[in-house]
């Protein structure tokens, strides 16, 4: 029995969701190999080998893998899983993992399990269905084939990482295996990456989310400012994204990012099922809304019925006061 974890990375650094995935894989207690796919990945390989609890680091390095396109990564995963007979294959349940893992699973003739939130045993996993309104326990009944799993990162929190007690060995995938990869007609044409100096939404300890009631992109700056004082990230409801106030990658919800921070603050968010699915596992939930009947108050630990345009500046002031004290 052994696990293979597909590392999500951005060439310079490992994405935090990879750590959550390894945390989930560790529950079974099997030896874990981390697979890194890309072009300039030496730095990432070093980071994984030195700071993650894995026993081996496998690196597939080639210029045509630089954008980690699903066609090649899935094929590579298949070849490596077959060659080394892994019993479990894991990836983060991010857009990266969800793009690649089902493709690899189908070519291995395996029905994968998406968004694992609990590892029961080697064949049994719990996953949310119906936007998190139910939790299904599913079990592999087929004896053959690896178990192929994507992990809901927020369900496997990790503490700050330090160096590991022992360094893992770094092995490179041989050229023979890479040269077998079929050419794909897919071309990377470009990307628009939204950058901010704030913590990443999926792993931030504090998340401030805004809804349509903010009325404009400009008003969202109030939340940026509050998030900066708190050292948190900014998110948004689908309504706010659809209205064009913020880019899509800030969306929290069933179809956006799922967050579970220590503190979630919903500002001008009514609390559609779709949005609740993305934040209701947060430890402490604060809702600020003028409508006392807004559904978000049903899941909020602390509800404040007040106009956000007066509440948010006052909130920021109070926090600054607290920080000075």
């Amino acid at each position, binding site marked *: 029995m052994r696990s293979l974890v597909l590392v999500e990375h951005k060439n310079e650094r490992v994405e935090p969701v990879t750590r959550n995935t390894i945390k989930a894989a560790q529950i079974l207690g099997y030896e874990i190999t981390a697979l890194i796919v890309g072009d300039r990945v030496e730095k990432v390989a070093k980071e994984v080998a030195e700071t993650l609890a894995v026993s081996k680091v496998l690196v597939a390095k080639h210029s045509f893998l630089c954008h980690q396109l699903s066609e090649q990564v899935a094929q590579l995963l298949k070849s490596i899983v077959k060659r080394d007979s892994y019993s479990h294959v894991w990836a983060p349940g991010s*857009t990266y993992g969800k793009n690649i893992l*089902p493709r690899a699973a189908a070519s291995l003739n395996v029905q994968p399990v998406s968004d694992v939130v609990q590892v029961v045993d080697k064949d049994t996993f719990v996953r949310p269905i119906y936007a998190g309104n139910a939790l299904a326990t599913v079990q592999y*009944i087929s004896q053959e084939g690896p178990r192929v799993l994507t992990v809901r990162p927020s369900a496997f929190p990790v503490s700050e990482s330090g160096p590991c007690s022992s360094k893992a060995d770094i092995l490179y995938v041989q050229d023979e295996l890479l040269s077998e990869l079929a050419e794909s007609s*897919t*071309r990377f044409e470009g990307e628009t990456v939204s950058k901010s100096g704030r913590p990443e939404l*999926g792993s931030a300890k504090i998340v401030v989310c805004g809804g349509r009631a903010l009325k404009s992109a400009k008003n969202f700056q109030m939340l940026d400012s509050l998030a900066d004082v708190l050292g948190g990230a900014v998110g948004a409801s689908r309504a706010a994204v659809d209205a064009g106030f913020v880019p899509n*990658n800030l969306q929290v919800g069933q179809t956006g990012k799922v967050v579970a921070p220590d503190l979630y603050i919903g500002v001008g968010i009514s609390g559609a099922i779709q949005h609740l699915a993305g934040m209701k596992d947060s430890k402490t939930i604060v809702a600020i809304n003028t409508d006392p009947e807004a559904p978000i108050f*049903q899941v909020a630990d602390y509800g404040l*019925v007040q106009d956000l345009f007066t509440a948010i500046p006052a*909130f920021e002031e109070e926090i600054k006061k607290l920080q000075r004290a």
Partner: protein
Amino acid sequence: MKILVAVKRVIDYAVPVRVKADKSGVEALLPKMSMNPFCEIALEEAVRLKEKKFVSEILAITLGPAGVQDVLRHALGLGADRALHVVSEQELQPLAVARLLAAVAKRESVGLALLGKQAIDDDSNQTGQMLAALLDWPQATFASKVEIDTSVPSKMRAVVTREVDGGLQTLSMELPAVITADLRLNTPRFVSLPNAIKAKKRQIEQLSPDSLGVEIVPQLRTVEVNAPPLRNAGTRVSNVAELVERLHNEARVL
């Protein structure tokens, strides 16, 4: 070019669900079924590609027992040219669905398969990717924009903008390909009454997994379905100062 659009019948997105007492699954609190919203977006995109003359025929397909056919009527009303129903009483997991779709895609020589990125009942987000693997076609998941590049007529390409965690990514690929639709790809139109009436009279082609040469062997068993842990009802605070005080002293998160 023929285009294949898979459509799934699900509990309407606005209807609350609860876990059944015997933990075998969920039940809807209102008897309202609809087309999965992401499938509807995929179908709308297919209709728009047809309006732009890139597509000659839209094939809508659904799978499941007899009762799922109304979703095909809806698809015909929205602009599908043909409706296919793969009749199966068995539980169809995404891999089985992908196999059946792959068999139809080959038989019908489709040039593009457009699917929703996920169904809002099981939230698996797998079928499109698996279909692409089985057909050995390129894929573009989470599409928020689709364009067809016909500059080389013998090698038409799809240019797809994808909603990824960090922002937006644009890929292009030769057709045939599989594209899965995200929320912001388009806003689906409504079915007009005359179209809905016409759709009622249209023929639905029936197929069976056997006739497609696909054997359905589920690999997963649902052991039980549980309700998520309930949150305790919270408290209302009267002002910002009280909120911050409570977050600091009671919840200890500030």
